[in-house]
Structures are given as structure tokens and as C-alpha cells.
């Protein structure tokens, strides 16, 4: 894992326009934006942690808690919505016993709604840890989750 110092060393000090790239790098390295990171970034950019948190929390791709072992993103774009990705999301929520945006208590699963995964021809779509699964329906979803649980 890349240390905070070496991430920050890539960016000149006190230039706030680097804030988003730094946050993205931190998330890449740690999986989410840690409290420690915010303090370090604050010192590097001479920026209050509140400002950093306020900015970071605006953007949906930046997160403040770790993902589950299996991170599900279910497409909820317009096209997928028309072919009922909504009910796939609620089914996933039901099986994982979490709401979209949360991590299950055992840390196995996390679930997120995605705006559009960009392959409308093959919807409904979902990705598990970035790997695409196309033409999902409730039974394939149940199967996918069951397989992961057993593995």
C-alpha cells in the first residue's frame, strides 16, 4: 500500500485544485478516505479538515468507510430502470440485509446504485468488484450471491 506521504509528495503544497486527485489517490490506495488522510491532506494543502470533508462528501464516488469483500454495483440508469433494475436492487438489499450505500455487518457485501454502467444493450447490469455481469434477473442475482457466500 502506498503511504500517505508518497501520495502527497506527488502534489505541490498549498494548491487546493489538487484536492480531488489527492482524494482519489488516497481512495485508490486505502479503499476509502481515512481520518488520518484528511488530517495529512489538510496540512499539505493548508486546508481545514472540515473543508476537505465537506468537499469530499459532495461527490458520490468518494467514500468514508471501507467496501465489503464483494462490492456490488447495480446499474440504475434509465435503460436498466425500464427493465426493472429497481426490483433487482431491492432484492439485493433484501438478501444482503442492507440498504444501497451500506456494507453488510459481516463485511462480506456492500451495495451501491450506479448511475449508468454504460452498456445499456446488455442490461440489467451489475458489477462485482468491478467485474461485469450482464442480463441479470432476480434468480441469477440470488445465485450469484449464494455462490459468493459459499466460496
Amino acid at each position, binding site marked *: 500500500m502506498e503511504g500517505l506521504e508518497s501520495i502527497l509528495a506527488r502534489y505541490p503544497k498549498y494548491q487546493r485544485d489538487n484536492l480531488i486527485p489527492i482524494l482519489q489517490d488516497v481512495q485508490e490506495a486505502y479503499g476509502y478516505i481515512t*481520518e488520518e488522510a*484528511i488530517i495529512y491532506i*489538510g496540512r499539505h494543502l493548508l486546508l*481545514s479538515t*472540515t*473543508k476537505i*470533508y*465537506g*468537499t469530499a462528501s*459532495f461527490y458520490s464516488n468518494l467514500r468514508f468507510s471501507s467496501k465489503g469483500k464483494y462490492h456490488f454495483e447495480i446499474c440504475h440508469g434509465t435503460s436498466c430502470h425500464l427493465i426493472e433494475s429497481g426490483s433487482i436492487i431491492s432484492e439485493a438489499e433484501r438478501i444482503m440485509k442492507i440498504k444501497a450505500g451500506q456494507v453488510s455487518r459481516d463485511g462480506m457485501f456492500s451495495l451501491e446504485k450506479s448511475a449508468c454502467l454504460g452498456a445499456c444493450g446488455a442490461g440489467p447490469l451489475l458489477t462485482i468488484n468491478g467485474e461485469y455481469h450482464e442480463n441479470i434477473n432476480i434468480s441469477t442475482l440470488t445465485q450469484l450471491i449464494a455462490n459468493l457466500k459459499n466460496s
Partner: protein
Amino acid sequence: MLFTIEVNNKQIKALKGETILSALNRNGISVPTLCYMPKLSPTGACRMCVVEIEGKSDLIPSCSFPVEEWMKIRTHSPRVIKARKTLVELLLANHPDDCLYCVRNTNCELQKLASEHNVRERRFHGRKSVLKLDQSCAPIVRDPSKCVLCGRCVRVCSEIIGVSTFEFTNKGIDTAVGTTYGKPLNLSNCITCGQCILECPTGALYEKESFSLLQETLHNTEIYPVIQCSPSVSVAIAEEYGIKAGKDFQGLLFAALRKIGFRKVYDTGFGNDINALNVATELADRIRNNEKLPMFNSCCPAWVKYAEQYLPELLPQLSQQRSPQQLMGRLIKQNLFTANSISPEKIFSVSVMPCTAKKFEAQRQEMTFNSVSDVDMVLTTRELAKLFRLNGIDFTAGESELADSPFGIKSTASRLYGISGGVAESVLRSLHFQLTGIEMPQVKVPKIRGLKARKDVRIQMGDFEVGVIAVSTVIQLQQVLKEIESGKSVYHLIEVMACPGGCINGGGQPFTKDENALTARMKAIYDSDEKDSVKSAHKNPGINEAMRLIIKELEGNETHNKFVATFEKRSVLL
């Protein structure tokens, strides 16, 4: 350049480059605002100030749109009114319906807007955001459910004060004003200055109230309630009664305090004198030894908290003297014990301050003696007015009274503590004597007076030139520190006040929309500096006589350090 525009079918003059709102206001036409802050650039968030401009299909926010020559504006057309009313209704739809229980009832901008727009029906129903009440911080309570997201607290904290405790978090319907990771305020970098309370249009931010508890104490015969009152309170409290600022009501205030049951009423001004004298002595020592300079004042608890959080390396340079409130608190209990044999546990010592941070200061761990607090309760000016109302007292009616002795005498310099620059001026008067052995020829230091955020002066004292700067708000301090670091400026005394203008504009003062209120409060204080003949702390006979005894006695009891302030690095999320 002036040009003419048409507003509501009448011609008015507008200046090139100004906003529509400013042109309207100068011509006496008012439009409602919520997020607008006169001293800062507009954000255009609340849309309450929208007006109709001929030729534009949308309504235009007057606060952030430059005025142009061709404009024909309608400020109160049915279309505008409908839009504003809907906006208010939308805010109300996400606002707790508990006005009668709200601290800002009858004094709330949202309430006022609703009433002005004649909102008489609940048009929008639905879910309200329920957010957690934060009572963690000693002086400030935050109720985010009542927040209308105008952003004024965010902006005053970061753009005027320079701390940035609050920021908008999340987006869309989840937008909220919050701290880093939504942590409670006591773990945040808040310096408790309370300026956010003054800015908040609703009851989302308010001081932690303690006066209702006080009522019981006042009527408990077992307990001996005493009170000290800061000079900045008496020049502002009358505004709570609708009286225009500009007059000092100290004598009447003392009388009223006795009426509601305080056994002794003291003037914190006496503490100011001791503080000024001791700071001057300390500074003279440091100048002679050329160490720990520049010296900083430590009488503003918000500034002290800021230093402990952000500038731990500067802590040794802070004056080691306790603040006037805490000095007085210690002295009051000690004196009542030695002179009247009242045990400290029985005494309930209250102080009235223009400040919210003083509530925090009174709770600091070192501010106790044998496990008894030096000051038991701190009220803000606003709370005191409420206490008077609760007791059915109109303090403006009655005869003036004096403060109780032995702390009744004070110099006029003590009054100056209320204004940014006043501490420095007061200290200079005594410093001159300390350094040279002669009185300062001209005690008034005009260069360090007024409401400017930063004022400095260099004064020759014998063969030594003393450099003094007074800054209010830490944003100014940050600038000054940079200059010092770069070697551009050299100072011996730096006076820091957290609130813009000093204590007369403290976070505990009455809410006011009157732009001239501050100037008037300031004038009342400067006026009183003219009145008396004792103009310097070191010439206060009270200190010379009565006080020496007590201090000596304390020294014998190995407790002399109980007058010394201690500071330590504070770890919070910065």
C-alpha cells in the same frame, strides 16, 4: 457612475458595478434576504431576494446580479411574491413545527419571513430531515434539524473568523451543515466564539442556556449567589429592550441584579484592571529580559483555544495571567471566605459576559480551587435579558447603584477591554509606568482605537520603542504571523480578539440588524473613558490596598499559582 433604472414604475439611481440589491437598499426599497451577508460576496443560495426583470424569463436574484442601465425591475409583483412565498413554504415543510418551544421564538428570521408572506396553510407535507441535536460543546448547541442551509455560519466561521468549523456536507436532499465526519462540536476545531449564533437566522445554533437553573439557586437560602458583570454587557443589553445602542446602563443593571436576588454584585472591570496591571508587569519583564516576545494576551478564551489547537508552539508567549472573569471569580470566593467566612462551596458565583467562549473558559480544568469552581455559571447578555424578563424586571426603570466593594473601584482603562485594541491600550498605560517610572503623557492611543480588524502603533517609552498590534478575528492574526515570520514586522504585544471588533460584538450579545449598533456600543465605552480621573490600572487604589492583602495571604498558602493561567496543546481535528 450613476444611472437611472426603473423600479416598480419609479426611477431610481443606481451605481455602475453594484448589485441590484444594493441599488434597491440605497433607495429604501427592501427585499427579503436569508443567505445574504453584507460584508461578504453573495452566494445566491436562498433565492429569497428574487425580483422580476422585464425581458428575462426567470426571476433574478438581486443579491448577486449586477445592475444594468436598461433594467425595469419589479420587486413585489404577484409573480415574485408567489415565488418567495413558495420558497418559505418549502423551508417550513422541512422545519420542525415547534416555534413555541424554540429559543428563537419571536426573534427568528424564518418566522418573520413566514409571517411577512402570510403563510397560513401547510401546503407541503412529507418527510422532514431528522438530524441529531449536538449538545456536546460547553457553550454552543447545534440543532441541525432547524438549519435552513443558508450557509451564514459556514461563511462567518471560515471567511470572517478564520476557523472553518462548519462546512456544507453531502449533496441533494442530504445536504447538511456539519463538521468533519459529522463529529460532535466538542471534538471539532470550534473555538466557541459564538459568531455563528449571531448569524444563524433560526434556532439551529444557540448558546447552552443556564439561566433557568439559576432561578432555583437565587431562591435557595442555603446558597449565597453573587454575580460579576462585564462592561461590554451594560452597553448592549438595552438593545434587548428595543432601546437604541449607545448608552451605558451599568448602574441600573447592578440595581436590577440585586433586585432579583444576587447578594453581591461585582464589576468585572476590576478584574480587567488587575489583568492589565499584571500583563504590563509581565511584559515589562519580558522586554527587559528580551524573552518570549512578542507577548500575546490571554484574556480572550476563544483565542486561547485557537492557540492551543493551532499554535501550540506559541503557547509560552501567551500572557500567564488569568482572564478578568477568572481572576474575579477566584478573588470573590477568596474574599467572601476571608472577610465574611462564607465557605466557597456555598457561594454560587455567576458572571455575565458578552461572550459564549467564557462558558468554556469557566469549565476549564485548571479554573478550580480545592475542587470548587471559581466561576459556577456564565450567562450571556441575551440570557441575562431573559432572566430579567422571567423575574418581571424592567431594569431601565429604577435608580443606579454601585458595585460591591472591595472590588468596586476601577480605572477607566478597564472599560476599554470591551473593544479590540482596548486591552492593548490599557496595558500600554501601565507598561509605560513600569518601564519608565513615569506616567504616560498622553494616555489615549487613537491609532489603536476603532472597529478596524487590525490596528497597530509604535510608542516610545523612554529609550525603548514598543510595537503593539491589535487584531480581531484569527484570520487577521494568521496574516500578522506571516508578516512576523517573514521579518516584515516586529511587535512586542499582540492583542488578539476572536470576534470582529472585540467583546462588544461578542457571540453572547443581543441579535441586531442595526448596522450602527456596534459603533454605538463602542462610543458608549470610549465615552466612559473620558469620565473618571483614574485612567490607568496601576493607579486603581483598590488594587494597591485591599488586593495586596489578599494576594499576600494567598502566597503564604502556596496557592499563588492559582492566579496563573496554564495552557496546553489541544488535539482536535483541525
